[in-house]
Each structure stands twice: as C-alpha cells, then as structure tokens.
C-alpha cells in the first residue's frame, strides 16, 4: 500500500521496526523544515505530501516512535 510496505518488501521483513524508525526520523526532520518555512507546525497531510507517503504511513511511523513496546516494533521479533 504505502512506502513502508514497499520498503519492507525490498529490505526483508526483519528490519521492519528499523525502517519504521527511519521513516519516523524523516518525518521529524521534514516537520522541522516545514515549521521553519511556514512559521507554524505543518499538518500531517503537508508532511505526507512532501515525503510522498500516505497519512497512514505517517501514523504508523509515529506510533512506532512512541514507545519501544509499540505493536509495530514487535511484529517480526
């Protein structure tokens, strides 16, 4: 469906939590960049558009960043 799934297909399933974290990091960086440009916090759609991700991908990556016991973290461990 989204970038995350493609990423996983390319890289093999073992790296799922790392790839989610990497996407999470990209999201954080883009958020900071857009905050400077817009002079306000960017919305979730604005970040998704810029990174060519779906809003669903962003939600999933944010949840993975949230806690080490996150559901996504444990999927393949």
């Amino acid at each position, binding site marked *: *469906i989204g970038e995350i*799934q493609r990423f*996983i297909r390319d890289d093999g*399933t073992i790296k*799922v939590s790392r790839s989610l974290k990497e996407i999470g990091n990209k999201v954080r960086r883009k958020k900071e960049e857009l905050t400077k440009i817009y002079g306000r916090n960017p919305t979730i759609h604005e970040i998704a558009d810029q990174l060519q991700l779906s*809003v*669903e991908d962003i*939600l999933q990556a944010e949840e993975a960043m949230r806690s080490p016991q996150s*559901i*996504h973290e*444990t*999927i*393949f461990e």
Partner: protein
Amino acid sequence: MNNEMNITFKSISANEAFARISVAAFVSSLDPTLEEINEIKTVVSEAVTNAIIHGYEENPHQTIAITCTLSEDNLTVIIEDFGLGINNIDLAKQPLYTSKPELERSGMGFTIMENFMDKVEIHSVPDEGTKVTMVKEFKKSKTLCN
C-alpha cells in the same frame, strides 16, 4: 487471552482508513506478520467500501458496524450495514461481477475477501442490510512465542 471490540461509524469514505487502521491495531496483539496485517486491512477496506457504495449508495448519514473477536489463534471480523442488501448473493460473489460497472468497480471485492480470509459468510436481506462475517486463523507456532 480472548478479546473483543466493536466500532460504529458514519458511512463516509474517509472512515474507510479509520476502520482499516482500527482493526489492524486491534489484531496486532496477536502478533501477526505484516502480510497478515495487510490482508486484514485489505478485506476491511473492501467490505467497508461495499457498505458505503452498494449498501448505502454513498448516503453519508448511515452507520456501519464492525465487531472483532480474537481468540487464541483466530480473528473473527463482522462488518455490517443496514442498507439496501443483496438480492442474489451467489451472483454477487462471482469474480468480476459488479452491479455498478459505471463506477469502474472491479467486481473483485468478495473474491479478495475469500482469498485472504479462511472463512467468509455473507448474510443479506434486501432493504434490511448486509452482514459479512470473516474468520482468519493465525499460525499457532508464532503466537505461542509470546
């Protein structure tokens, strides 16, 4: 551990993502593979889209209900609308059959559900609504690791 949830929401296409993500989040306590999660998300999307487009003909003021039950190693998802219903279920299930070719529907919704899930049951009464019950079994070996 047995677990259960219900969600109800309005027949708005924006809620398709909400339904799909909610069911995926609920199932994740069974520690599914990403493939299983994607299969479940896909069938939820198909059934919710059917409820919106066929059951309610895109009237956004109606309600869709989902019930999920988890037991040790399987998930039951029930997706229900209270709309137009299906006249001929055998016909509706046929691959490529769609009653709305003008909307460029693929006619593959039920086929996808039957492929991704271990059991699919359709109960429908014209003018009362449609209830799709799906079961997916998860591999024991994996869930035992928790």
